[in-house]
């Protein structure tokens, strides 16, 4: 499977995702944001980090880059697109995913391992997970507080477009295990065609037992199928 990782100035999880993809046997290429063409890819990853320093709004400026037009085109043609953390923020800024990510409710950068629950495992991104499976996964962000309008929220729920929700270690979903204030404890969402996934947690950080765990592995192996 061919993957492309888009690199913006200020991306800083680009190497991490590349390492994870290669470990999972993807044939990966890095694509610099000034390029005007994407290599042939089955999966495009918009990685985490601080594109353009997160200046103005996180993701806003990357959302206006040249390459992003190609990403939009490919996504509309059905290519799989994964946005992680800053990548998620960028995808919302481009409109590929609806809603927006606001400052964490405690107004602080948060880095810690949290739990998320797999809400929809019937997608190209999540079929190797069990439904309601609880993952332990790392988050690291300033602006992960997902918000959207009531209609879209209804759509997310009714069409099963919520990918992951923050939960406690027993799987309970409530305000006390919501790290950033996201509506409905949302940690990740799909677009309506389910070929685009945006998520705040970092699956690429969870593919190596020495540094964490392997709870992120199945996301990548789902894609390989």
């Amino acid at each position, binding site marked *: 499977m061919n993957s492309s990782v888009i690199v913006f100035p200020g991306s800083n999880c680009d190497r991490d995702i590349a390492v994870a993809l290669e470990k999972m046997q993807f044939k990966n290429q890095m694509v610099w944001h000034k390029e005007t063409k994407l290599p042939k890819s089955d999966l495009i990853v918009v990685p985490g980090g601080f594109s*353009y*320093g997160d*200046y*103005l709004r996180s993701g806003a*400026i990357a959302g*206006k880059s040249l390459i992003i037009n190609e990403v939009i085109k490919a996504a509309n043609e059905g290519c799989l697109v994964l946005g992680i953390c800053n990548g998620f923020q960028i995808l919302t800024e481009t409109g590929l995913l609806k809603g927006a990510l606001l400052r964490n409710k405690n107004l602080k950068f948060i880095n810690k391992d949290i739990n998320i629950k797999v809400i929809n495992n019937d997608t190209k991104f999540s079929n190797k997970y069990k439904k309601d499976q609880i993952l332990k996964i790392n988050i690291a962000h300033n602006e992960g507080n997902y918000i959207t309008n009531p209609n879209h929220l209804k759509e997310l729920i009714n069409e099963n477009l919520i990918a992951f929700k923050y939960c406690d270690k027993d799987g309970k979903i409530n305000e006390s295990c919501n790290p950033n204030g996201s509506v409905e404890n949302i940690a990740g969402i799909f677009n309506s065609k389910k070929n685009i996934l945006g998520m705040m947690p970092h699956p690429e950080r969870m593919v190596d037992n020495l540094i964490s765990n392997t709870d992120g592995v199945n996301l990548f192996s789902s894609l390989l199928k």
Partner: protein
Amino acid sequence: MKLISVKQLRLSLKKNKLKFSVTVTLKKDVLDPQGKVVQNTLQNLGMDSLKSVRQGKYFELEVNDNNQTQAEKKVDDMCKKLLANLIIEDYKINKI
């Protein structure tokens, strides 16, 4: 009975609300990385006539007070105490 009177009290208080805006900007010679990036981006988007961008913070404050001069002094105090760091920032208060 009591409930109504509280409501009325609230209502009467509302009349005395004064609204101010505060803008906090970086001092002239201080680096403004955000403004710089925004400027470059807008120019790259084809806004050639754009000469410069500086970014700052904006606040809208509502103060309960009957006396505007007094209220303004209070807001000024808030700016000095919290909203601006006078080492690198300037601020401006406006009645709105």
